[in-house]
């Protein structure tokens, strides 16, 4: 059976094709002006990369904040359901799943069977999501993908008082003016966001193993801060941003009859 999972996030569309339960191809587009176009292009990319035709796909499930935009989907799945399912497939031992995307953060408690037992969501405030690190990278004048490696060079924790991304940007600028090393500021940024995420995780209860997925899991600085704060190791898949798309594609298999 060939299925597709389409995850329409706040910023990017991620598509994953599964053939007999094994990933066969992926597609990725940043949503610019046109969400539908990004969906179509990323979908076509995934199909062609898996050396298939659209007609070969028997079922497509959509997830993510923009999942209603996937008009050709046969079904849909919530973000929490998709992340949990994807993370459980990647790491069967995971009991706590942390998923942080561009605009939302989620903490999910999953059972041994991968079922969602509880979850907490942080939404509608940039302070608790990837948008925060993007804003801080801009203020620091570094590329967002360089922010993580930069923070690993830090030897010193500096406090950041502002919670709001807008106020934190001004604080970063003042820190730069005060000649605070950029790597220390980068670490402060990751510590700040990881503190907020961890507090949310504690509301569902921290149980090992802990898996971290979503776009922000690509950021090594964020992962370091999470590990430090939890005083525990965490599991991070190779392509953390595709976890929800994987979950959706698996759901398509299960609901395919």
């Amino acid at each position, binding site marked *: 059976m060939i299925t597709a999972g389409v995850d329409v996030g706040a910023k990017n569309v991620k598509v994953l094709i599964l053939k007999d339960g094994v990933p066969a191809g992926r597609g990725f587009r940043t949503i610019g002006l046109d969400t539908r176009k990004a969906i179509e292009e990323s979908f076509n990319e995934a199909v062609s990369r898996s050396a298939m035709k659209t007609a070969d796909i028997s079922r497509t499930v959509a997830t993510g904040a923009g999942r209603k935009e996937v008009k050709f989907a046969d079904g849909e799945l919530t973000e929490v359901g998709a992340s949990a399912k994807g993370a459980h497939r990647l790491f069967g031992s995971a009991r706590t799943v942390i998923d942080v995307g561009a605009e939302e953060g989620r903490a999910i408690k999953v059972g041994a069977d991968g079922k969602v037992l*509880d979850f907490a969501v942080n*939404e509608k405030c940039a302070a*608790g999501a990837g948008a925060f690190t993007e804003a801080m990278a801009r203020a620091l004048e570094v590329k967002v993908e360089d922010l993580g490696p930069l923070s690993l060079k830090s030897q010193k924790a500096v406090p950041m008082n502002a*919670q709001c991304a807008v106020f934190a940007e001004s604080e970063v600028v003042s820190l730069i003016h005060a000649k605070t090393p950029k790597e220390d500021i980068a670490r402060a940024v990751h510590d700040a966001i990881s*503190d*907020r995420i961890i*507090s949310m995780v504690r*509301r*569902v*209860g921290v149980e090992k193993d802990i898996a971290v997925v979503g776009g922000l899991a690509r950021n090594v600085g964020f992962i370091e801060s999470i590990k430090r704060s939890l005083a525990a190791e965490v599991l991070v898949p190779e392509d953390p941003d595709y976890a929800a798309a994987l979950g959706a594609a698996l759901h398509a298999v299960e609901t395919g009859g």
Partner: protein
Amino acid sequence: MIANYGYMDGSGEFFVRIDTGKCDGCADCVAACPAGVLQVAEDENDPLSEQPVAKVNEDHRRKLKYSCGPCKPVAGRPPLPCVAACKPGAIEHSW
């Protein structure tokens, strides 16, 4: 005085409301709070009074959602320690 400490952001309203008219300054809430959110001191918003009252510490006011998070588990929410400890019933949470 009804003192609303906390904030509202895109994700919700997170206020700890202290009725300083009811608060007798006993500090039971301070002892009960596992996160060190509360203290008893002079009422900074009523500068001509010398009566000490409970208030939320300055460094927690902008992150109450997170500071109070551990007392608000998603499943089976127990009574809040600060609210339960307050005999005069002066403390309320907005979320």
